[in-house]
């Protein structure tokens, strides 16, 4: 279970997170929504120790990770994977090598076992036969799929998705969402997604949390979230999350 307690973060003089309290349920799909620049990606990066809070605590089960570094932080990160906005594939490696990268580098795996696991993951994300291509040769949707294959290949307990459908057309976005949901249901990992895709996220998420003015203002099941009477949240979800709310800052 991931738990954030009173997390605060400033960049220069600009406060982004101002006391975030959030508990992520295990084995469920939780989506964090909020206006553009409200700090959703910053929040996500705190969960895996890419950013350290100025104040507050970040717990992954019984380990407080916000002050960890080096090998001890890496031990916690082994339980995670992350799909970045632009997929963050290594340019100099082919799709196959990208997906094989954590197996070879972390598990020191070699030979046919790597080939088998990589081919299996590429098939699951619909990229069979595309392993020889380089990231620059792939479309946006294919890059996200390759990124998802790389995230899945280590069979992590927790996967973070940072706006996985940014820059994709609605059909491609839906296919990526469907794929994420299918993988989550199949492997049962804890999924935490940052997204703007309203109302689609209500159909795929178990829990939805909203970040506003640097705090979580509502966390509820997808159905309860849509029934909220808070006028600002209602306005936000009714216009599709494309309007930045007052208090929005930087992502």
């Amino acid at each position, binding site marked *: 279970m991931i738990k954030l307690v009173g997390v605060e973060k400033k960049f220069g003089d600009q406060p982004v997170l101002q006391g975030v309290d959030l508990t992520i349920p295990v084995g469920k799909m939780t989506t964090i929504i909020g206006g553009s620049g409200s700090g959703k990606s910053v929040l996500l990066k705190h969960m895996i120790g890419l950013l350290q809070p100025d104040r507050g605590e970040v717990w992954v089960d019984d380990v407080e990770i916000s002050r960890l570094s080096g090998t001890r932080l890496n*031990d916690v990160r082994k339980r995670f*994977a992350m799909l970045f906005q632009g997929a963050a*594939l290594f*340019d100099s490696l082919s799709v196959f090598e990208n997906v094989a*990268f954590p197996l070879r*580098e*972390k598990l020191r795996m070699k030979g046919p076992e790597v080939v088998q696991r990589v081919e299996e993951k590429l098939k699951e994300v619909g990229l069979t036969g595309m392993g020889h291509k380089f990231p620059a040769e792939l479309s946006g949707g294919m890059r996200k799929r390759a990124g998802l294959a790389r995230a899945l290949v280590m069979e992590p307990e927790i996967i973070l998705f940072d706006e996985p459908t940014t820059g994709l057309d609605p059909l491609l976005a839906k296919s990526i969402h469907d794929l994420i949901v299918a993988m989550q249901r199949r492997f049962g990992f804890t999924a935490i997604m940052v997204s703007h895709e309203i109302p689609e996220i209500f159909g795929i998420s178990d829990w939805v949390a909203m970040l506003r003015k640097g705090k979580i203002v509502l966390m509820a099941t997808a159905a309860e979230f849509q029934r909220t009477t808070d006028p600002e949240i209602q306005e936000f979800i009714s216009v599709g999350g494309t309007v930045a709310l007052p208090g929005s800052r930087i992502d």
Partner: protein
Amino acid sequence: MNMIERLGAWAVMRVREMGRMVLFVLSSFAWLVRPPFRFHQIMKQLHFIGYRSTFVVVLTAGFTGMVLALQGYYSLRKFGSEGLLGSAVALSMIRELGPVLAALMVTARAGSAMTAEIGIMRITEQIDALDTMAINPRQYLIAPKLVAGVLGVPLLVAIFDVVGIYGGSLVGVDLLGISEGAYWNSVESAVEWKDVYGGILKSITFGLIVSWICCYKGFYTRQSAEGLGSATTEAVVLSSVLILVGDYILTSLLL
């Protein structure tokens, strides 16, 4: 904010930056001695920094030796000492021009590319991706480049020195008519182990400076195309300046 406060803030910022630079290189070397050992990555970087810089280094060395011989010949002739041309060329090459010019060439060719490569990886979150996979970017990306710089630049300097001295011979002996025996005898009698040792020490230091500064600037690139452009420029300028300053300091210590 008054001027003194601004000056103080600037000084604090610079000191903090220097501290971060020192910690950056120390932690990268510390990661180098922890398993897994990335021998393949080091070889790959040696190929990039060393082998692929050979052509430009040979070209620069050849012309530097030739022009040195040309200038030296007309200066020495005034004193009737053309026979000392070999020693003038060899000592200039081994003590000063070899380490400095080879390091500047490596900065221009490989250093700028290193900054750009690491900077793009930072902007496109590839470095964050390494972190999330529990692979330390300093161990995987930076440490092999530092080692390759420290090993590669001295090898390039050795090539630079030899090619430069042969370039001097081409002009001095073949074009200007100095006796071949006099040229090479002058080289042999003038160059001592102390000169070679000084050149090696300089080239190791300059190799470290280039790879350190260029990796650091790329690693802490600001998240924009403009940030990447200025990081690359800063890396090349700062490396070049530090090579020249370092050369003066080392020369004064070695003499």
